[in-house]
């Protein structure tokens, strides 16, 4: 079986994205160490997905650059990048008759040349990824008949099948039930890969990530360990909510509770 690529250092250097005269991401510099898990948080439209799309080359940055172990991601062939960096975008295939297995097996494409078939090792990688995501039993089912959460797990399995050392995930848990939310994040953590994950659930983020980067209006406003970043003041400023942050008595991780009502005006 192909060993997974080793985790790389992912760096954004002054990344800016302007579309239609609107700055979606401004001057973002972010450094993710090998094996580190960083959560991107922030309100809708803060630029999280846009930044992630620059990472996996779905979008070219207007300014700045993204490097993987020092190599500019736009200066290498797409296939080589896809062997080192896997992504879970939000969009899912539809309309065509693809089975769950076929969707997940697409993850092997960057490892394959033209006319090269799938071998037993590929099938093991794909089935292993489906098993990791608890959807192996659905391998022969048509993808478009799955529930939203099952689809999402298949797309994560596709990224796992890439065996890349770095992963970029755009809200990988938004359709998942509580148990699978935990499972997916624990799995990613356990892979030892470098990961950047856009996530709305701050409690989930606090429990699983090394650092949180909170974005607002296209730029990072706070970055650091969950306990440092998740403060009532920041939540009031960025999300405009009145929130209480306590440390969980059993796990010691920050726990955010949003209270009804407007935050106090400063």
């Amino acid at each position, binding site marked *: 079986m192909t060993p997974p690529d080793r985790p790389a250092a992912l760096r954004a250097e002054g990344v800016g994205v302007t579309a239609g005269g609107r700055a979606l991401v401004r001057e973002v510099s972010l450094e993710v160490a090998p094996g580190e898990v960083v959560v991107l948080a922030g309100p809708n439209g803060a630029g999280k997905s846009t930044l992630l*799309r620059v990472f*996996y*080359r*779905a979008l070219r940055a207007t300014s700045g650059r993204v490097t993987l172990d020092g190599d500019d991601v736009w200066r290498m*062939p*797409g*296939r*080589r*990048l*896809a*062997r080192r960096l*896997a*992504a879970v*975008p*939000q*969009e*899912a*295939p539809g*309309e*065509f*008759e*693809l*089975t769950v297995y*076929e*969707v997940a097996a*697409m*993850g092997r*494409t*960057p490892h*394959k040349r*033209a*006319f090269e*078939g799938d071998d037993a090792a590929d099938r093991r990688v794909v089935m292993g990824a489906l098993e990791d995501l*608890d*959807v*192996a*039993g*659905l391998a*022969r*089912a*048509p993808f478009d*008949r799955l529930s939203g959460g*099952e689809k999402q797990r298949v*797309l994560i399995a*596709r*990224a796992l099948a*890439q065996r890349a050392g770095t992963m*970029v995930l755009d809200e990988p848990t938004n359709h998942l039930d509580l*148990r699978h939310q935990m499972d997916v994040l624990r799995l990613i953590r356990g892979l030892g890969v470098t990961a950047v994950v856009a996530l709305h659930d701050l409690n989930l983020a606090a429990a699983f990530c090394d650092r949180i980067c909170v974005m607002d209006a296209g730029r990072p406003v706070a970055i650091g360990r969950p306990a440092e970043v998740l403060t009532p003041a920041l939540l009031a400023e960025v999300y405009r909510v009145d929130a209480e942050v306590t440390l969980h008595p059993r796990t010691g991780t920050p726990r955010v509770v949003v209270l009804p009502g407007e935050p106090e005006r400063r």
Partner: protein
Amino acid sequence: MTRTAPSRPRADTAPVRRGRVPYVPLLIVFAAAVAVTATAGIAAGSVPLPFGEVWAILLHRLHPSLAEPTWTAVRETIVIDVRLPRVLLCAVVGAGLSVCGMALQALVRNPLADPMLLGVSSGATVGAVVVVVFDVSLLGVFSLPLAAFSGAFAALVLVYLLARAGGRMTTVRLVLSGVATAEVLSAVASGLIITSGDPHKTDAALRWMLGGLAGTTWDLVGIPAAAVLFGTGVLLGVSRPLNLLLAGEEAAAALGLDVHRFRGALFALVALMIGTIVAVSGSIGFVGLMLPHAVRLLVGADHRRALPAVALLGAAFLIAADLAARSVIAPQEIPIGILTALTGGPFFLWLMRRRAAR
């Protein structure tokens, strides 16, 4: 329910692949269908020939020791110079349209895409109609196919430029420019025909527009055959990236595909194939829309499996359709485009309803 109950037990209740059939036997059946329809296509006509004689003549031509000549020279001429090129061209056109349809559906990620969508066939029609109406005969038998090809290619360039205007080429813009260009060019062709004022020319142009392969000679087979073989080979080589497009642009990019460049290149390849096909056959509708669907229902959407199957099925289908077109009201011929639409439409609807009912 305990937390050790994952969704795996659903394996037995999970929906299995609907109606998929074993691949290799299916491919053999399709290949046999090509052989049978081709034999029938060569055997049938004003001078009917027995199947055995058809094969004997073909084998003898392949190598004289393979069959003892027991037939007249006239019969050999009928098989080799009259019916064989026509049947071969049918196979090429059928396979080419089906393969192009399947590739286009992936390229624009829309199962309703059809080779006629790019405006290519309307462009070809304008070229052909100009030749027919204005009696252009600069290049002999090649005047019409060349004019049709030029029209097709001009339409392609136009659609491509329109779709690209303002940078990125999006699927929606590609489809819209194709549809709009097709409409305008159809109007131009119809206008030319109506104002020509010569019933013979009108009839000839109309027949061309409805598609047909009557009067095919060996001269006309070579170029489309080469284009279709080359194009199908290339598409098979890029069938993995083609699969990625089904997953969407974002996912395809994340899996290492330069989506815009890939789509532009394949768009040109497919247009080249369709251009050479339409130039010799006129616009034959429904083949490129219907057969890819039928094949995907049978073997799934993976292009590595679906492309060879759709090429064979397309060849067999069009040979059979052409056979029907020239036998139903013999010695008259029905334009083949009418037949493909008449049989294809209902078949397509039946397939769709059957699928929905599952």
